[in-house]
């Protein structure tokens, strides 16, 4: 199975038209690529044309699933950034959300990665988890302070309809406590040297993820593999999410993707450009908007911008349009104003 899938991905890389420019970043993720044997990772990596031109090459891994040898091999292949799905450093909470790793596993993995030569390490954390207290979160932050990592992505738990969580009766923190947790993160991480560059992303200077920033800055990307998304020539497509279907389609030379939204039009492009750009603390770049759409952003959103400024959700200057700290907290109120 792994073998067939790996071959299919390599085949897809051959089939897709990849522009010959320098590559901005490479990312192995979405799921847990580190369950693949190292040879297969290497095979896929080697099939990428022009791969050595990329300054940022990331792989995702779950704590406790990668040993020192595997990590050294990743470095040897060319990976220079690693991202661990830590979620929490509290074993009681990890257990309650069904994670099989422990906080010990996480600390060991981070340490091994560092020893293997990774100088750019990210951890993913979640807050507002079931049974989590402010003290639990403070404890996570204290651990981060002591770690040699460069990047933190931290999300409030959002339970979406139709997921396993939505069926369960969970003891979630109140809105007030969740807000306090958010406030704590926003003030504490910068104090530890991680500045906020996007709603949920924090990095030490110079370690902002090029891959992530690409998503919010209208940079095209090509995703390979089942359920991978691509953004190319202003189109958004998604590969078949059923692995069997994906492999069959690739092997038989048939279409293996679908449009994310078949009715997409120019207004959607403009809206996406704006609500994605606003996720960054640097905001929407006015000149980039004008270059792409031909007119200043005010031509489309003057009233919306004024309204958001009056609510203290938005701030503007001659270069950019950005969310205020309050705007970051109530981002959706700003985003929806930019839907055409």
């Amino acid at each position, binding site marked *: 199975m792994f073998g067939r899938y790996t071959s299919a991905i390599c085949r897809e890389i051959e089939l897709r038209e990849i522009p010959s420019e320098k590559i901005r970043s490479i990312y192995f993720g979405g799921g847990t690529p580190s369950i693949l044997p190292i040879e297969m990772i290497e095979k896929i990596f080697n099939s990428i044309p022009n791969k050595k031109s990329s300054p940022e090459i990331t792989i995702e891994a779950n704590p406790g699933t990668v040993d020192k040898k595997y990590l050294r091999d990743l470095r040897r292949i060319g990976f220079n950034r690693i991202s661990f799905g830590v979620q929490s450093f509290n074993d009681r909470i990890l257990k309650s959300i069904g994670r099989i790793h422990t906080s010990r596993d996480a600390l060991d993995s981070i340490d091994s990665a560092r020893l293997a030569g990774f100088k750019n390490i990210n951890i993913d954390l979640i807050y507002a988890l079931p049974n989590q207290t402010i003290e639990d979160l403070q404890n996570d932050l204290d651990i981060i302070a002591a770690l040699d990592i460069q990047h933190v992505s931290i999300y409030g738990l959002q339970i979406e309809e139709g997921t396993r969580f939505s069926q369960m009766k969970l003891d979630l923190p109140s809105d007030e406590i969740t807000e306090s947790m*958010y406030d704590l993160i926003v003030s504490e991480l910068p104090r530890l040297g991680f500045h906020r560059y996007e709603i949920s992303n924090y990095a030490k200077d110079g370690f902002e993820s090029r891959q992530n920033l690409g*998503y919010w800055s209208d940079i095209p990307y090509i995703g390979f593999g089942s359920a991978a998304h691509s953004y190319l020539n202003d189109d958004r497509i998604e590969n078949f999410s059923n692995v069997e279907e994906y492999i069959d389609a690739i092997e038989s030379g048939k279409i293996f993707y679908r449009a994310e939204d078949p009715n997409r039009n120019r207004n959607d492009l403009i809206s996406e450009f704006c609500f994605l750009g606003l996720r960054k603390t640097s905001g929407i770049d006015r000149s980039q908007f004008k270059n792409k759409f031909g007119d200043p952003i005010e031509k489309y959103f003057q009233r919306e911008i004024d309204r958001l400024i009056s609510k203290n959700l938005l701030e503007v200057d001659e270069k950019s349009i950005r969310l205020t700290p*309050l705007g970051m*907290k109530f981002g*959706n109120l700003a985003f929806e104003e930019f*839907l055409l």
Partner: protein
Amino acid sequence: MDQKHIRNFSIIAHIDHGKSTIADRLIEITGTMQKRDMEAQVLDNMELERERGITIKAQTVRLNYKSRDGEMYQLNLIDTPGHVDFNYEVSRSLAACEGALLVVDAAQGVEAQTLANVYLALDHDLTILPVINKIDLPSADPDRVKKEIEDGIGLDASDAILTSAKTGEGIDEILEKIVEEIPAPEGDENSPLQALIFDSYFDPYKGAVARIRLMSGKIEKGDRLKMMATGKIFEVTELGCFSPNLMPLDELSTGEVGYVCGSLKDVRDIRVGDTITSEKNPASEPLPGYRGVTSMVYCGLYPVDSADYDNLKEALEKLQLNDAALKFEPETSAALGFGFRCGFLGLLHMDVIQERLEREYNLKLITTAPSVIYRVNKTDGEILMIDNPAKLPKTTEIASIAEPYVKATVIVPKDYVGSVMEVSQDKRGEYQSMDYLDTNRVMITYQIPLSEIIYDYFDRLKSTTRGYASLDYELSDYREADLVKLDILLNGDVVDALSSIVHKDRAVPRGRQLALKLKRIIPQQMFDIPVQAAVGGRIIAREDVKARRKDVLAKCYGGDVSRKKKLLEKQKEGKKRMKAVGSVDLPQEAFMAILSDD
């Protein structure tokens, strides 16, 4: 056509008892329209009318029918609006007829609405032909319905025509009975012209068009005619009959039903109930029964987006072209900005106008809760008619307030009499009478404040009688009552559009209820919102809408964009009907919260 061969009739029926289907069958069987040209319910033109299964505008059709005696007859069917809001229009349509079909559902029996219209028809001395429809239904019970017609209305139903408009059974018999039983129109062709206007509408090519019935005299193309109530004079450029589309003719004479149009641009020049006569040889008297438009309820209409004000104005003007009963004038609300105070014949009329504005003119509107017109005697002797609760003078300037009462007629199975009385009593109703229509069904009448009818009287009536109650009402008089203004404050400021006038005894419980209800309706915002209710400046209730703590999509990477955009769109869609009042966003629902107890 000589007068002896003309029959003018209308159809009286409760909603859903099959009026429109019967009309369709009559049109079909007389060959007035080919079957392939017919859409179901030909006479209900407006999309809204079809959807709701109701008639809003009176429609007319001329049927040419060769009867069993071998003669050709001209049958004019005037289809009347089927709702209490349009009672006056119904009465004018009936005045244009000599007879009426009383259509009653063979399973449902007589309803309050039917009864009210039958009495109207009897007032006009119409010959009434009972028709029992839907006899194909398994639950049909024609004998019971006959008895109801006889006991409840006092009509002889032994010869009632049994039909099924669905299968076509009995339709021939209806046509024969119309010819045999309904009298031919009277009136003298050589007398001065008297034509009754029973409806009007606007045609983009012909201008304002009057639907008329000639009571005496005749009209030819080129005649100069005069409206007797308004004095307006115009020259006839076209006249004709309805087939049901306009069919131009050279003349209309006594007894006939048709249309005239001329140099008239505004439907307000063509008042329903007015008499048209000839300019050079006018009738000495107009026909009886004319009255101006009386608006029963008023509400404020405001654009959600204040930039739409001019569009709203234009749309109201266009609707008024076709609906002389719609009144509006500019109004300013501290909370809602610029909008219009609009007067309507009733709640359905209001609903229909609002829906047409949104649908046909693509406007997003905030509608304030409907209000009746209060008569205020001020201490300085001035009398004010108040159509907006926010405009009620200060308590110290008020000597007394009077409110409109209606006579409400309710028909229910006898088991529910207690429930009807309870609800009516609770709505400040004053018992008047109770009569048995048959062994099972009872007609109860009450004097009730119109404001309570608008509040939730009918809803409560329906739920407490499990849907069996039918209601009809007519304005009776103004009565003094102990009324006070109930204000709502958001963030400490009075929101004028949420004020209402209530009976003093109910002000406190209603204020509490309203504050609670608003707390439920107003979505969480970025800050706490105190919701207070006040009577005469005294706070009687307070609830708080707690602030939303944060609202942001935590995660949005390459694969999430389209899905997250959909989420944002959904969230935005939910806010479309919200109006920013100060710093608080209020949904349309909040403005209607005043209207019910739940």
